[in-house]
């Protein structure tokens, strides 16, 4: 520790603090505390050992450690091995992200020898909802209805992940150099929460471009 410059230590502390805030560990700790005070109403504050044990039991520590990325975006040898053995799949995949701005790519296997464009849809704003007009033709006269889809009743549940098929929902489809993807449906809202990313292969080297992905790509077609 003595060989590390003080500003580096500060930087490391900042990184740790950032990671802790991103991992949503505070909420987990709050849950543990609430549960503890309910179970033991008269035992005073929780001990540190007990708290850590509870967090370990809930898997919070494990999941936090798994999300740590070391160095640059190079995948570990094991990940690379995995991506080699699964080359029949397209290297490009949907990435689920938990944070609005950060870029956790740890769940994706991709070929680090090719450059990719990582395109994330974070959120939407100022959706007017009165753009899509539908027209109905009824015997000799025309009637129009401007569908105000923002005022339709939404399903209850987590915003942005409406599970009910009754609610109307948006979806974004993208096409880039023969790669087609589609986001999960997200709620038709004024400020929809999307938070989904796609890894798009930018360039295929001639030696590596021999694998034919067409059979796997069909399911992505719009």
């Amino acid at each position, binding site marked *: 520790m003595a060989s590390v410059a003080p500003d580096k230590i500060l930087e490391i502390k900042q990184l740790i603090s950032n990671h802790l805030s991103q991992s949503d560990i505070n909420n987990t700790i709050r849950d543990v505390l609430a549960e503890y005070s309910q179970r033991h109403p008269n035992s005073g504050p929780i001990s540190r050992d007990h708290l850590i044990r509870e967090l370990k039991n809930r898997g919070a520590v494990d999941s936090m450690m798994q999300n740590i990325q070391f160095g640059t975006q190079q995948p570990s040898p094991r990940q690379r091995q995995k991506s080699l053995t699964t080359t029949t799949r397209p290297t490009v995949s949907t990435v689920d992200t938990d944070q609005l701005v950060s870029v956790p790519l740890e769940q994706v296997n991709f070929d680090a020898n090719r*450059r990719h464009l990582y395109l994330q849809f974070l959120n939407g*704003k100022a959706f007017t909802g009165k*753009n*899509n007009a539908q027209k109905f033709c009824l015997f000799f006269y025309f009637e129009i209805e401007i569908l105000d889809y923002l005022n339709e009743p939404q399903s209850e549940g987590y915003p942005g992940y409406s599970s009910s098929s009754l609610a109307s929902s948006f979806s974004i*489809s993208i*096409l*880039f150099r023969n790669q087609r993807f589609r986001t999960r449906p997200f709620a038709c809202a004024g400020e929809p929460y999307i938070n989904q990313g796609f890894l798009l292969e*930018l360039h295929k080297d001639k030696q590596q471009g021999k694998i034919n992905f067409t059979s796997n790509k069909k399911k992505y077609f719009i």
Partner: protein
Amino acid sequence: MADSETLLSICDRVHIVLTRKDTLGEIHLVSSHFLEWRQVLCAPANKTNRILELNGIGNLSFSFSYKRISIFFCLGAENKLPVGVINVCLQIIPPLNENISEDILAAQLDLEHTKSTERERLFLIYAKQWWKEYLEIREEHRTRLVKIFGQVIFIEYFHS
């Protein structure tokens, strides 16, 4: 691995289409956008946030009735009302060793634009020539109705 010059030469844009599934399960096209992604090559650490303004493509229709006569208007592809904006984050992975300067990117985009407009101009000249020759073949061709130009919703398809 592809270097910055190779990436700069990729003129394909990302086609982004927003659809809406209504309560009956029908899917409607809401917006179509072509995203020029190469600004990310100039950004620090090859990562940048962008705001996409999505415009509608839907047919906005109006009608009014007067003494059992209805008049119906339908605006077509030119009707581009804003639908909303979407925040996106673009990133090159793995990042480039050195960034491209904005001047070079601007020059590249200018060059591509010039080429594309030149191609369109040549096509129009060709089409006009074809039409002139067609009229000269027979006398009756002068009165025959022929539609030689059509317009599609995604006018951008012509450019790509």
